[in-house]
């Protein structure tokens, strides 16, 4: 089931609409956002997903993490 989300990649200049699948892992979701912003932001690892101010387990799925349509998530990239 597709879930439209507002994604913000650290280093980017604009938020992007990301169509997640509720079975996507958060790692895959972060990769989707990174690929969508690759014109402006160089790829760096590791990626961390932040949702409601908490760093999330990358192995969780979008559904398990409780993401709902039009929620905001952030992706931090590079070493902490």
């Amino acid at each position: 089931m597709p879930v439209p989300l507002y994604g913000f990649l650290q280093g980017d200049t604009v938020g992007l609409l990301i169509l997640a699948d509720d079975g996507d892992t958060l790692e895959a979701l972060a990769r989707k956002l990174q690929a969508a912003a690759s014109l402006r932001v160089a790829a760096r690892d590791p990626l961390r997903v932040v949702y409601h101010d908490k760093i999330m387990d990358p192995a969780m799925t979008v559904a398990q993490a409780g993401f709902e349509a039009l929620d905001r998530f952030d992706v931090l990239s590079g070493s902490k």
Partner: protein
Amino acid sequence: MLTREEWLPLARKLDWDYSYVREDEVFPEVISGRPWLPHSEWKDWEESFKTSYREYVDNQYEKDMAVQAVHDAVGRIENVEKLALPWLNSLKVHAAALPLAEFTGVVGNLRGARFGRDSAWRTMATFGALDEYRHTQIPLLLFHPLLRLDSQFDWAHKFYHTNNWFAVAARHFFDELTVGQNAIEFHIATNVVLETGFTNLQFVGLASLARESSDHMFERMVTSIQTDEARHAQIGHPVLATVMKHDPKYAQYLVDKWFWRNWRLFSILTGLSIDYLTALDQRPYSFKEFMEEWIIDQFLRTLDEFGLEKPWYWDLLLDELDIYHHMIYASAYSYRATLWFNFVIPGPAERKWLRQKYPKYWDDMDAVWEQISERWRTVGPGPANEFAVHGTAMPTFCDLCQLPLSAGTPRKNTARVLVHEGRKYIFCSEPCQWIFLREPERYASHTDIVKRVLSGEAPAQLPNLLTEYFNLTPDTWGKDVHSGDYEWLRARKDSAA
């Protein structure tokens, strides 16, 4: 024979008591504005120009003849062809955004001409409406014929009639500011905030840049328009003074709200022109320097004059001077096909200048331009590669200002989600959310471009969105001015090889 001084008050300031209707029926609060006060509270409304209709017409005729003379001398297509390409694209921005926005000013002033609370106010608003009609016609006359040179100038007429994302944002702003506004809020928002403050960006800042860019036609046009603005902007000050006397909290709210809304729009309209679309050796100052000298200082003096406080978001606004329009320009460059003008990448010399002018956040912006440049270097220059150096995912927009979610910094975007009466909204910044929450009934039903795509109203695929919804064509959608073929980028490629 009466002297001018004897007949002028009869022509411009003549009020009487109503006997067949109540005053609040003649001037209903919903359209005259609040606070609703009897005319006795407005009877001393006055402005200093005290112009008669004949004087107005004579004066405007002289100004129109002067503009026409400059147009005949230096405003022909062959003159425009000689302008630097980035500046030509700055002209396209203003050619589209200015004329019909001014036309909405006709509507707002006509509302003041009927529903303003004193006859002298109504007289002046009548002239204001005529002014704004002039400000519609002159740029249309000068800019639209340039489509023979470049089809993107067709957007001088077309822009506001499209659902282009920037047109949606501009309509959202001007519909509230002018078309759907009561007389009191219109005159405070337009005359005090927009015309006393922000149009200096257009009419002083851009006039100066136009002169530096040898664009004497544009310089003359905006200077001529400014002389009208200086006159009819006088309407708002006595309106604000009366509202301040009777409801200072509401006066503060109107000023705070409209300063922010103006900042959002004009930082894009003018910020991009000054810091990116003017050749480096023709930039006498940065956008931030101009804002500080002409807008911030003047606005603070206006606040002092009326006993108003600085807006609560003042520190945030000062911080945005360093970054917001840079975030927007980089985002817009990477989605340039969604707009009707062409873009240029800041090269090493421009980036050095930008770093000097904007040291606070430039490291992060520089990384973005490095990445975009690297993409051009990888795919190679040429029109065929435009879309290889273009965003593909849908960018997102604020539910208040309707502009991209590009506020904050690259490290921390300030977008915020709000659930209001069961519906989810997103705002680029705290002030945009604050404005929404003060009058949600005014804004809640408007849908931004993302919601239109998700509902199926607008196509999701970029090519269809561009052509079917934004009304662009391959000829008119925005491109890189040089198709990625920059000398400094070639030099870098050669050294890499």
